[in-house]
């Protein structure tokens, strides 16, 4: 049985076979330029990620899923606005291209983090047995959304995990220590492309992390994601028994998913806080990559 000790996440360039297939599906279905660290971490456990993905996928290219992520995103922006702007950008000496690229990078994570949160909530519901074998009746007229990465989305570029730059290394150490994380998340690794910017936002974010309102806001986002996940149209046939049959330890899968479910609301909130420095809350509450509507009949239209 595959234990769930910390294993090396599978990089996109390292993926082959089933993992390569799923990574491509993740990019096309979630409409995102890269595979984030939490999904890459699950890929380290052989058949787990393909099974998880195949169980979740029918929901993930539905309008309902996209709308759920949009609602989580809007709620994250509202919460971030109540916490207040970080005002981290002034005086950093960033050039115009750097400014614009940081904004594009934030748009990427502002788009994908809420989707990952709803996805994770859905996975846990399925895993807990709360999802939804009875849902098939609801899926009579499910609207599907376009596949494919939006043309202007920033690539999911990130600094290597063990960066050579001592300034970035020290920042990563601090982030890991403060968040008690085994690895530095994709968002921070992307923002580390501009070390001065990451240092500035991290120094302003760090004291906020300990505030009660921050914790409540994050919990609220998690609750919203879970509630919205319950309303998604398709069942999630990934039970503990199925995971165990794959040779993966179900308890540790559950722990890991729970850990992601705790982490992702904070990442969504953090990115909203970062982005508020650049974009007014009203604009930020809208999806940075709204998606075209397509109508399909639930069963006949599924690809």
């Amino acid at each position, binding site marked *: 049985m595959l234990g769930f000790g910390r294993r090396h996440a599978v*990089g*996109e*360039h*390292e993926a*082959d076979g089933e993992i390569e297939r799923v990574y491509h599906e993740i990019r096309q279905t979630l409409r995102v*330029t*890269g595979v984030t660290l939490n999904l890459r971490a699950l890929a380290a456990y052989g058949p787990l990620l393909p099974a998880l993905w195949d169980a979740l996928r029918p929901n993930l290219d539905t309008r309902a899923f996209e709308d759920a992520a949009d609602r989580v995103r809007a709620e994250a922006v509202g919460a971030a606005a109540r916490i207040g702007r970080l005002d981290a950008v002034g005086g950093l*000496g*960033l*050039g*115009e*291209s*750097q400014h*614009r*690229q940081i904004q*594009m990078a934030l748009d990427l994570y502002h788009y994908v983090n809420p989707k990952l949160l709803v996805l994770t909530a859905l996975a846990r519901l399925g895993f807990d047995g709360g999802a939804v074998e009875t849902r098939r009746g609801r899926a009579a007229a499910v609207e599907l959304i376009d596949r494919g*990465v939006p*043309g*202007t*989305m*920033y*690539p*999911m*570029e*990130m*600094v*290597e995990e063990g960066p050579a730059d001592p300034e970035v290394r020290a920042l990563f150490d601090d982030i890991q220590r403060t968040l008690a994380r085994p690895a530095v998340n994709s968002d921070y690794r992307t923002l580390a*492309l501009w070390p001065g910017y990451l240092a500035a936002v991290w120094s302003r974010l760090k004291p906020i992390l300990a505030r009660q309102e921050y914790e409540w806001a994050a919990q609220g986002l998690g609750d919203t994601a879970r509630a919205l996940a319950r309303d998604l149209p398709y069942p999630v046939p990934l039970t503990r028994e199925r995971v165990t049959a794959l040779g993966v330890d179900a308890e540790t899968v559950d722990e890991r998913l729970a850990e992601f479910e705790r982490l992702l609301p904070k990442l969504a909130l953090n990115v909203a806080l970062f982005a508020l420095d650049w974009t007014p809350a009203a604009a930020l509450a809208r999806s940075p990559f709204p998606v075209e509507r397509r109508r399909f009949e639930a069963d006949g239209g599924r690809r």
Partner: protein
Amino acid sequence: MTWRQFQAAQRLATIGDRFLSYVDQGAGNPVILLHGIPTWGYLWHGVLPTLAERHRVLVPDLLGFGYSDRSDRFDRSIAVQADAIERWMIELRVESATVVGHDIGGGVALRLATLAPRRVSRLCLIDTVCYDSWPSEMLLPLGRPESSRKLSAPGAVRLLRRALADGFASHPDPDLLDGLVAPYATEVGKLSLIRNVAALNTNHTTELTPHLPQIAVPTFILWGEDDRFQPVRYAERLANDIPGARLYRVERARHFVMFDRPDEVRRRLRGFLDIDVEARAA
């Protein structure tokens, strides 16, 4: 100027769904400096201040290079690059410019001078790709799709540093090499570099050969005499085919002539560019 300082000086233009980063310094007649592969605009940091004393100097990162768009969903051939540079000039309302190109940047410059001649007021070719002089055997294996799996980002950077070093007549400064390879030190950067190599296409210069005799703008060809990547015989061919072109061989210099002989390159470039300024003053 460090590569970080250069990066911080970059502005950004949008061209359709793509974006292009560039430095814009100085005032006067516009001069566009085009880098080659596998470098980026930082290639020109040593000549930029001198040229910007009397000219408006524009230094873009080609698409897929440096800190321009490096997403994995567009062609990076020099044909596309030339179109992008023309669209970028229109965006900046630069009607025409002196275009200086190194390596594949020279290929882009040649395409502009032959296929969009109204955009080029003067042409300077420095150790440039042309005819069937390229792609280099050394780079080609990197362009295979499987390279992205076989090679880690740090591995690609090591490979690049070794390859670049062969383009210098003497040992290059390690900080300079760090700066030249910096944009390619991530997985996205590595993949973009692989796609850039995959886009190298001899036909995009061989198809220009019939048009070279129609180039009607002043043309200066500056070449490292010991260039191993683009041997000087190609410079001689260009000098014969482009009417009135003047060739200057830089002694004891290889491909990266601007680093091997920086003072001489600055002086020669400035001499070529200042003809306009001096003519106007006269």
